[in-house]
């Protein structure tokens, strides 16, 4: 907004004081470059948009798992106090349904997004992107969704097909039965 325009607006405002200010008149945000948002912009799209460079494998993830994850999530992603992340595939229609990464989560990209943003619980953000890829690879491998030597990176991860990818019915904007 230029100074001269601002002056004329003041006069207008004085004349029309009883009218409501237009809603767009505030403009108190500061313009910020997308680059300056990089530390915050951690959302990963289903198509993999936002995945960082780096990579990891299940064997690399295995060591990190024992150190960083197993206390809450179990030695092999099973039996931990925070619930199973491995197993249960095919169980969703049974009375003992077990909703895990393998049996329930529809997209592998969600796993990277969540591990990077929120895990490990007591020190989120402390893992490198390579380590996050490795843990993701470990969990996918434990669930027998990818092979032992599969390399997870920005290209391969979104292509992983999860067993329950077709298991969801969207109710927005209407029930898609």
């Amino acid at each position: 907004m230029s100074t001269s325009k601002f002056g004329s607006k003041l006069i207008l405002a004085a004349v029309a004081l009883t009218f409501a200010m237009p809603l767009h008149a505030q403009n108190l945000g500061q313009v910020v470059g997308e680059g300056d948002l990089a530390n915050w912009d951690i959302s990963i799209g289903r198509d993999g948009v936002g995945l960082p460079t780096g990579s990891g494998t299940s064997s690399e993830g295995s060591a990190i798992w024992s150190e960083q994850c197993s206390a809450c999530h179990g030695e092999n992603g099973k039996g931990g106090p925070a619930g199973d992340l491995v197993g249960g595939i095919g169980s969703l229609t049974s009375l003992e349904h077990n909703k895990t990464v393998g049996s329930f989560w529809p997209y592998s990209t969600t796993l990277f997004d969540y591990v990077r943003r929120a895990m490990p619980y007591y020190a989120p953000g402390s893992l490198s992107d390579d380590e996050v890829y490795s843990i993701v690879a470990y969990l996918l491998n434990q669930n027998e969704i990818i092979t032992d030597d599969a390399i997870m990176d920005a290209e391969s991860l979104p292509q992983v097909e999860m067993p329950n990818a077709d298991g969801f019915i969207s109710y927005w904007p209407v029930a898609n039965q």
Partner: protein
Amino acid sequence: MTSSKLLPLSTEEHAAGNGLVSRRWLLRTGFPAAGAVGLSSGLVQAEELRVPDWSSSPGLDLTGYGQPSPFESEVVRPTLPLFPEGIGDGSGVSFTPLEKLAGTITPNGLFFERHHSGIPEIDPTAHQFAIHGLVERPLVFTVEALLRYPMVTKTCFIECAGNSLFNSFDEAQQRTAGEIHGLIGNAEWAGVSLAQLLDEAGVSPQGKWLVAEGADAAKMSRSIPIEKAMDGDAFIALYQNGERIRPEQGYPMRLVVPGWQGSMNVKWLRRIKVVSAPVYAKDETSKYTLLQKDGKSRQFTYEMGVKSVITSPSPGRELGAPGLYQISGLAWSGAGRITKVEVSADGGASWAEAMIPDQTSTRALTRFQLPWQWSGQSATLMSRATDEAGAVQPTREAWYEPYAANQLFHQNAIQVWAVSHDGGIRNVYV
């Protein structure tokens, strides 16, 4: 209430079986006086009134921030950590003690909590809120800047999608109304229209969804259809019931999406990214999705269904001697106004329409009440709400029909309280 002899209700007063009294009678006479409604008076002589100590000397000094009476020290939120100690500390829920409150507004200190990684201790002068993604101008706002915007004010409830989780157990749990249904709170929120801020950033035509994200350690995030903001509905709340939002409610700011799942009302809001499609965050795939018997799961079930619960009488608010009581409870719907609440005292065999003193509030807690002449025999109390969209609260059995066993999200089934002859009250399934 003193014991009094019960007489039959007149035809005019009778509304439904097992002693329910017509709300029309309540409307006409106001709050019923003892002795009315077919009750013999049986008045007892009171003793001489004495002057208590607190009327005989000056009281306490002024205080900067008032606290409840020490005699109300048991009115607190029951807390429920979700994991064993040392595993996910700070992740859990606390319940609004519904049965200990009256009216419709939830006091700020008793408003339920659900945290995914504890309560961040945010310095408001260091907090920033960004709007970016598919916009012409990514913007970042300080709290101070947002406080200069025109304020919108709305009274609405926020309800956790996992509310009533204890009624997902196979056997009815003996807990209070608040412990079962208290993952809900109702407040007057004041803040800034999200549509206004999005307009300032300039949403591109490809922008169809918003990713809202908190500044907590879990950086809790949800995808939200942009319509919820652009129709003027969603806003960024800075105040709750007149004061700045409490830390456990998102200080210094939270998103409010009236009528929708609690977890979409992102607390400690730090960022909204405009995107073309939902990001399928953990809390809209792994959690907050509704597993059906056929193994498929309902997703993006945003609106909270029509629901009600009798808060008095209820477990912990047992009955005394037989006689006249006021059945009182709360009803709400994410779809809008509550148009009708029916009450049954005979397990659903007959229903009477309750009085709703304020029928204008939309997507907000609504109080209902109905006089009840309790005979001293066992009774089965239920309430059933209807909203302006015509949706009627289902029975638990009907609600579970499509869902897998123990599916707990969006449960809005009718609550059943069994009253025994000694006035005790239990949670039961029928």
